[in-house]
């Protein structure tokens, strides 16, 4: 029997947004913690740390996210954890985000004028104070726009979790589409929902960028 595409189906899809949002948030928070570590290693004075960070970024930016999802998904089994789409998607997306945020934040840290770090050294600040109170607050302002831009990319990337069977917005759309045989309507609705989620963030990223350019030009 073919289901109608009615209010229940629309509600099912709209409510699947919460899984897309939840997965995006988890990946973003995990990625932010990892990304900060990667960025700090990337600008570290220790050669080994720099090498690790460069390798990490290279590998995650040089391979498809879909492959990263597959490897984590099948790899969980190998290290003795149950195969779980939720966990695999969260871990893979967080690692993916860590590489991209690490690279974005590395650039932001290096964009802070070097005199700032030298001044902190001259005042005999330790590493933690120099980073936490001098460099990072200034880098954060530079990083705001590209980080928001990356968040849009990350939200869109969560759609790939549907391929390993995690039921978020795209997968919910597929399920309803298969049950109702109204792919055109259903996929359009899914696309509109993604757009409504991503577009405001894109606009915010652009506004942050122009505002930053104005401040930097002064």
């Amino acid at each position, binding site marked *: 029997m073919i289901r109608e595409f009615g209010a229940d189906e629309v509600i099912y899809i709209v409510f699947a947004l919460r899984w897309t949002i939840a997965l995006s948030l988890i990946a973003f928070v995990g990625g932010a913690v990892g990304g900060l570590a990667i960025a700090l290693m990337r600008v570290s004075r220790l050669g080994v740390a720099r090498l690790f960070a460069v390798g990490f970024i290279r590998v995650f930016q040089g391979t498809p996210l879909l492959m990263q999802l597959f490897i984590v998904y*099948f790899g969980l089994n190998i290290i003795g954890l149950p195969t779980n789409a939720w966990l695999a998607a969260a871990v893979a997306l967080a690692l993916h985000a860590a590489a991209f945020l690490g690279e974005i934040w590395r650039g932001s840290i290096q964009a802070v004028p070097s005199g700032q770090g030298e001044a902190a050294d001259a005042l005999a600040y330790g590493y933690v104070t120099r980073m936490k109170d001098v460099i990072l607050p200034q880098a954060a302002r530079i990083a705001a726009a590209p980080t928001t831009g990356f968040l849009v990319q990350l939200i869109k990337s969560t759609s790939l979790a549907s391929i390993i069977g995690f039921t978020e917005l795209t997968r919910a759309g597929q399920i309803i589409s298969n049950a109702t045989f109204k792919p055109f309507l259903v996929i359009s609705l899914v696309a509109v929902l993604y757009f409504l989620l991503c577009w405001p963030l894109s606009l915010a990223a652009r506004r942050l960028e122009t505002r930053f350019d104005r401040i930097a030009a002064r």
Partner: protein
Amino acid sequence: MYQFNFAPVFNALDMLLVGVWYTIQMSVAAMSLGLVVSLVGAALKTSGPRPLRFCVDIYVELIRNTPFLVQIFFIFFGLPALGIRLSPNTTALLALTINFGAYGTEIIRAGIKSISKGQIEAAQAIGLSWLQVLRYVVIKPALRAVYPALTSQFIFLMLGSSVVSAISATDLTAAANDLNSLTFASFEVYLVTTVIYLALSILFSTIFAGIGRLCFAYPVNR
């Protein structure tokens, strides 16, 4: 303890290599077509009539704010409702082209914007012909400005093309999926495939860097 078993993967490596060739072909074709779309889009955006500029805006925003996977599904599963039925491979090429076109439009528009009027006026003032102005003052600096962004967009396109396996278009990931269902050595198959993708992206970024140094180096650097 898990026993890794790479033998069946390496025995069927030719299967993956065929997939590599498909991925390269598809990526290069989509980039070439996508560049045409980008050039038209950027030209319309900078000097087209208002309604067309608005259309380009809508195109760019729609594509950049929805997932690529949803765009493929829309073309492959959605469009047949309107009577447009495309094969998986055609869908993949079309979707990659449309996607690249949106990002490329933005990149090239920024490149055009980066050339200031004063440069052109200065070139005319020292007596360059309009062809020389176009070649040395407009096109070359504009290409130099957009080249790094376009090449990294190409790498993203190639890596993103793995998603087309979701509608069973033929590419490296699809070959890996086939090999996986033959051997059941999932982890090994996808690990080797990932390494191949990494090699591809390093290969292409090296080639692009070489071309960039050959074509866009400033004379003063030599």
